[in-house]
């Protein structure tokens, strides 16, 4: 199986926010935290375009590179996840992310910033699958149930595709050929344009 990816089709998105609602409901995400949101370009102008944005689970994820406590990891399916027990809420990942995906719950008079929260591609986290701890910290683990992210599966116009990169790319290609326009995929090059860094062989390094 290829890597899991998101694909946002600006030609189809009708800004209904169904993906945002599906995500919020599925994971019981608290107020002030938006794992997914819909961004509209040239809002109110004829020809406006909307796109659904969340963590794109980049091939060469900048958040992973800048994290000072190395709390990120990537699964075999290409999903970028993080360990909330290690996160110190410094916010470096937020500055590094080209999509503004990392979210920080804020509370109190002094703007206390909590541990980072982001889209998990509905793949849970380091806690045991289907456990209460996993749901509380990371939300529901749909991938372990053999399902795809709730946002993509709930999308009424199928503007948001999520899943195996080969399959969704084929669906999109077919769609573009049929409608004859809108071949640009927003964020695709930014997220998946760079290949993953190969591990460098260091002399004396533990295998």
């Amino acid at each position, binding site marked *: 199986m290829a890597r899991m990816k998101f694909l946002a089709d600006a030609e189809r998105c009708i800004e209904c926010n169904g993906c945002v609602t599906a995500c919020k409901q599925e994971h019981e995400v608290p107020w002030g935290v938006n794992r997914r949101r819909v961004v509209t370009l040239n809002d109110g102008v004829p020809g406006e375009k909307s796109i659904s944005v969340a963590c794109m689970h980049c091939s060469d994820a900048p958040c992973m590179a800048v994290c000072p406590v190395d709390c990120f990891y*990537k699964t*075999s399916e290409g999903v970028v996840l993080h360990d909330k027990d290690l996160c110190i809420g410094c916010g470096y990942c937020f500055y590094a992310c080209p999509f503004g995906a990392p979210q920080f719950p804020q509370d109190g008079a002094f703007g206390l910033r909590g541990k980072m929260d982001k889209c998990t591609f509905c793949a849970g986290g380091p806690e045991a699958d*289907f456990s209460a701890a996993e749901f509380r910290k990371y939300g529901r683990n749909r991938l372990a149930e053999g399902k795809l992210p709730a946002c993509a599966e709930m999308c009424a116009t199928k503007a948001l595709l999520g899943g195996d990169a080969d399959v969704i790319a084929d669906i999109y290609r077919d769609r573009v050929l049929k409608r004859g326009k809108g071949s640009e995929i927003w964020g695709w090059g930014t997220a998946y344009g760079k290949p993953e860094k190969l591990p460098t062989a260091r002399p004396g390094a533990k295998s």
Partner: protein
Amino acid sequence: MRKALLIAAAVAVAWVAAGCGEKATVTVYKQGQYQGKPDKQPWDNDQFKGDKVAWEKAVKARNLGQNEYVRISGG
């Protein structure tokens, strides 16, 4: 004295430059851990009981279900 200072400077430069490294983001799954963080494969649970093929089949069906040209007959 001058030689010792040069050696000390060279060691200091090498030590500082060592902090500029970048960690590889490539996936390494080893004994229930991804890059040191504990996690399991998505098919390694009570539902799929380690059956990777069954999991892939389930996910593939969901993947293809996103293509409404196939779902809606006559498309």
